[in-house]
């Protein structure tokens, strides 16, 4: 409070002299309380950043150590830097195949849910028909209910159609559970697109299919990118669905593989390889994030300001 008044006084004096008329110029004058607040804020934020970075660095460091080195001291550097742990994690523990399973399942589900989600969102946004409101609320309900409630019957639904413990079954389930969010988000997006364009296209004789694929879908590209990113993160991290519906170790996805790797018989865990597996899981996504962080942070804001 006080520093503001000081500034105002300074400013008014300045302009009275006629020397400084541009009062609103981004001045560099800092008051004492500015300095205190600034120092405290920077300190707090720096502490938080250290808290974020140090555990990640420690994991990277540990991933090069042998299990006995890890038990000897949490800080000591590894005796020799080599990639044995990474090789063990990738092949022996099967992280490699879990990784490819994850890629297959997540991208398959992403394709399905983006395609059908955008189509349904478009129909719900553009046309009113009996029940369209009901469908909209049905989507909302699917978004709020915890997956946990559905997990037991879902097990038997998948078994009934013979897709239990298969990757295609997992793809369908992932896609279905990402569907309401996709529709909900894109619904708002399609509504905000100008109607006159699709009407003009209809006048020119374009059918509904063509209007959607050639005009509306390209126009919705920013919204699609946003939903795709958010869905990707959500599905990549999904663990409950695979743990319950995909129990064949050969079909494990990455998150599930990590969990079972870590819980394997307490003491016999190869800790070095576990740390290496963590690095393998995190680093690719971290690199993608650092490259695309501007778009991603834009997406986050869009995604939650629907």
């Amino acid at each position: 409070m006080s520093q503001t008044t000081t500034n105002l006084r300074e400013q008014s004096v300045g302009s009275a002299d006629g020397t400084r008329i541009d009062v609103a110029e981004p001045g560099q004058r800092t008051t004492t309380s500015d300095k205190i607040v600034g120092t405290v804020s920077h300190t707090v934020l720096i502490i938080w950043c250290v808290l974020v970075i140090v555990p990640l660095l420690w994991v990277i460091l540990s991933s090069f150590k042998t299990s006995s080195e890890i038990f000897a001291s949490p800080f000591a550097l590894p005796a020799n830097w080599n990639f044995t742990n990474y090789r063990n994690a990738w092949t022996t523990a099967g992280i490699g195949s879990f990784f490819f399973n994850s890629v297959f399942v997540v991208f398959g589900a992403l394709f399905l849910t983006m395609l059908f989600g955008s189509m349904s969102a478009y129909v719900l946004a553009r046309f009113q028909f009996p029940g369209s409101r009901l469908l909209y609320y049905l989507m909302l309900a699917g978004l709020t209910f915890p997956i946990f409630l559905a997990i037991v019957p879902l097990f038997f639904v998948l078994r009934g159609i013979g897709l239990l413990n298969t990757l295609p079954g997992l793809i369908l389930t992932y896609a279905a559970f990402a569907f309401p969010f996709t529709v909900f988000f894109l619904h708002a997006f399609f509504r905000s697109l100008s109607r006159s364009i699709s009407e003009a296209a209809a006048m020119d004789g374009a059918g509904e299919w063509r209007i959607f694929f050639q005009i509306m879908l390209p126009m919705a590209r920013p919204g699609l990118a946003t939903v795709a990113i958010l869905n990707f993160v959500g599905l990549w991290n999904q663990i409950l669905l695979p743990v319950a519906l995909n129990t064949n170790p050969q079909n494990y996805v990455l998150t599930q593989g990590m969990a079972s790797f870590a819980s394997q018989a307490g003491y016999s865990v190869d800790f070095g390889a576990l740390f290496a597996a963590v690095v393998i899981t995190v680093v690719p996504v971290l690199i993608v994030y650092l490259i695309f962080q501007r778009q991603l942070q834009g997406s986050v804001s869009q995604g939650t300001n629907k």
Partner: protein
Amino acid sequence: MTAVTSPPVGRPTGFRVLASPRWRRRNLTFDKISFFLVFLVVPVIGYLAFVVSPFVQAAYFSLTNWTGFSPEMKFVGLANYAKLLDDDTFRKAVGNSVTLAIVLPTVTLGIALIFASLVTVGGPSSGRIRGLRHSSLYRVVSFFPYVVPAIVIGLIWSAIYDPNSGLLNGVLTRIGVDQARSFAWLGDIRTAKLAVMFAIVWGLVGFYMVLFIAAIKGIPSEVFEAARVDGAGRFRTAVSITIPLIRDNVQTAYIYMGILALDAFVYMAALEPGGGPANSTLVIAQQLFTTAFVKGQFGYACAMGVFLALVTLAYAGLIFLVNKLTGGTNEVGE
């Protein structure tokens, strides 16, 4: 700075004006019919089969004594729910879940809000409204944990908390805290819950910080300038300007975060797979999973699921109510 689209701080009005023309029954061409079939009917059927029907079935199974392995099931009415009330382990789990749902959103969103306002408007009190220096560095680094899958966050922290080889005890003994030698953070009833909650907060602050930064950037800077001219200090600005203007974002965040805290299965699966010392970190989701897939009591597990769903809905309703009573809008962000 970023490609942040300005969030609708005041709710956009006039959405309805753009609303669609009524669907006309005439001119039903092949194009239109096939369009509707593929665009709406097929995906909605899939959605009904994989999402809606399991929810409905769960509600029904919760009224039976189904074991899941035999085809027989007997309708038992509300017996499962009555059993829930007497189940001490389940009551313990409910207590833990509710604690998480109260503490986690408040702490996480509190920290995220403070950081977000420092980064956006916490800069010097003269000149242009701006954040601290290096603010984008803080923003990027804080967001790191969000790209780490939740299960991996759990694994990393269970390694950090490890009594003998963990980072935490390593640091503490190094700086002379001798009680920390071989202290089992996750195995001691006094610290287990705190340790678990810290790991979850660590993983999520960055995401909500970025969310709030975007919301605050959507507030026109004239508003902050006006507050400053009227003599409002930093704290006053945050309480009277920033929070009221982004209250809808805070509400959404509270609901997301609360749903996550009521679930919390992923984190617990990595940190405390057994429910923690004396079940002090056992959550509803874990108990449900054990009841269904280990004990084979599917009917009973479904009753737990319905209970969890009701708690979640009640929680969301409570947040809406509080927001409305304190003067916010009552809209689901559409």
